[in-house]
């Protein structure tokens, strides 16, 4: 959770000033979990090789962050301070296993594709980060919105990176051939982990160029 200090800045707003739109914008764009907070990198290396996988993973993230944020927020006055992190992890793990079981029961093929990575959402820093930085000190509704916003923010970047990687690496998008193997040489590098770093780094650069971090935050 090395990034807690970063994500904490946008928290603990008085309820009267909470603007849901603002929370949404923060999560999806202004303080995007991947490009701005640089969280949850471990998983996206593995699941962004194909757009389809990235979509399902993004959906899982939205579900888990939203639900765990809501629950943590509802319990925020009950959870003893000293074990709050353990409690958060227990709640997150429960929702992740829900989702994993759901995939195994009803979307068997996708569950096979994603393998162990669905379960690894438990250790995704975004989920824990939002619970710890936002939900534990804000009312349920803003927390739910924050969870959804950050989930969407993560999912968007996942899909964007997967678009590049699948296109350059396999020459396909969502399994449809775009660059024909007849004249296009697949670039395997983009399927491997370094490819994700290249694409993500490039994306972070572009997004931070369009939307530079505010000076006050840079000095931190």
């Amino acid at each position: 959770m090395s990034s807690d200090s970063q994500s904490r800045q946008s928290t603990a707003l008085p309820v009267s000033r909470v603007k849901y739109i603002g929370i949404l914008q923060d999560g999806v764009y202004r303080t995007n979990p991947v490009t701005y907070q640089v969280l949850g990198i471990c998983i996206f290396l593995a699941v962004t090789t194909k757009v389809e996988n990235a979509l399902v993973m993004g959906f899982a993230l939205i579900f888990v962050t939203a639900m765990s944020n809501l629950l943590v927020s509802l319990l925020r006055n009950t959870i003893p301070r000293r074990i709050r992190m353990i409690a958060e992890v227990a709640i997150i793990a429960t929702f992740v296993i829900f989702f994993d079981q759901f995939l195994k029961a009803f979307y068997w093929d996708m569950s096979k594709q994603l393998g162990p990575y669905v379960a690894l959402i438990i250790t995704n820093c975004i989920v824990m980060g939002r619970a710890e930085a936002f939900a534990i000190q804000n009312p349920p509704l803003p927390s739910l919105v924050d969870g959804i916003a950050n989930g969407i923010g993560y999912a968007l970047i996942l899909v964007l990176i997967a678009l590049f990687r699948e296109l350059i690496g396999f020459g396909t998008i969502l399994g449809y051939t775009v660059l024909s193997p007849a004249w296009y040489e697949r670039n395997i590098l983009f399927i491997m982990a370094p490819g994700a770093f290249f694409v993500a780094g490039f994306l972070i650069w572009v997004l931070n160029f369009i939307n530079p971090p505010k000076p006050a935050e840079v000095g931190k």
Partner: protein
Amino acid sequence: MKDNTRTLLFAGVLGLICALALAGVSQFTAPYRQANEKAEEVRNYLAALGVPGREGMSSQELLDVFEENVRVEQLGEQTVYRYIPGSGSQAEAVAVAVPFSGVGLWGPIRGVLALGPNFTTIRGIRFFDQQETPGLGGEIGAEWFQNQFVGKRIVSAGGDPGFKVNKPGTPEDVNSVDGITGATMTSSRVEAILDNLAKELLKEKQSDVQ
């Protein structure tokens, strides 16, 4: 002290609720998951053996086709699935399938290898249970990788049992396929599993003949 009690109580109650919720979900999904797993296995046996079937058959249909066409026998220590079309109207098996399992990079790899009735030529292969890296080692579950095996032999040109998974670009052999670029660890583990299987099979077959 009072604080500690409260903390313990909270942890206990939260743990209990989470556990109960998970147990409930697991109970609810168990039949679906088991049906999926069973159908998955059967589907792979049928596909490897080349038993004709429609796309998108339900679990029950798959099981029916399996019952009708496949007979399970023991060859030494090896379980053998014989494909006899139309349940025994012909005595001779068209193909035989042997399950295999071994150690992958992240977890166990399980699959099934289908061979001609003489246990030499590969008719098909399926890796149906594996946790290799998606997009890299996970490609062993992909069509293109598995299709390479069709027509290969588990006996070398010189007559020795064995199988090789080579680096892509290596000249082909009667008993080798190309591995996966970027997934050397998975490729070599697959090689070890199949090589071992080829040797085991020959041993069983010889002792069976005697």
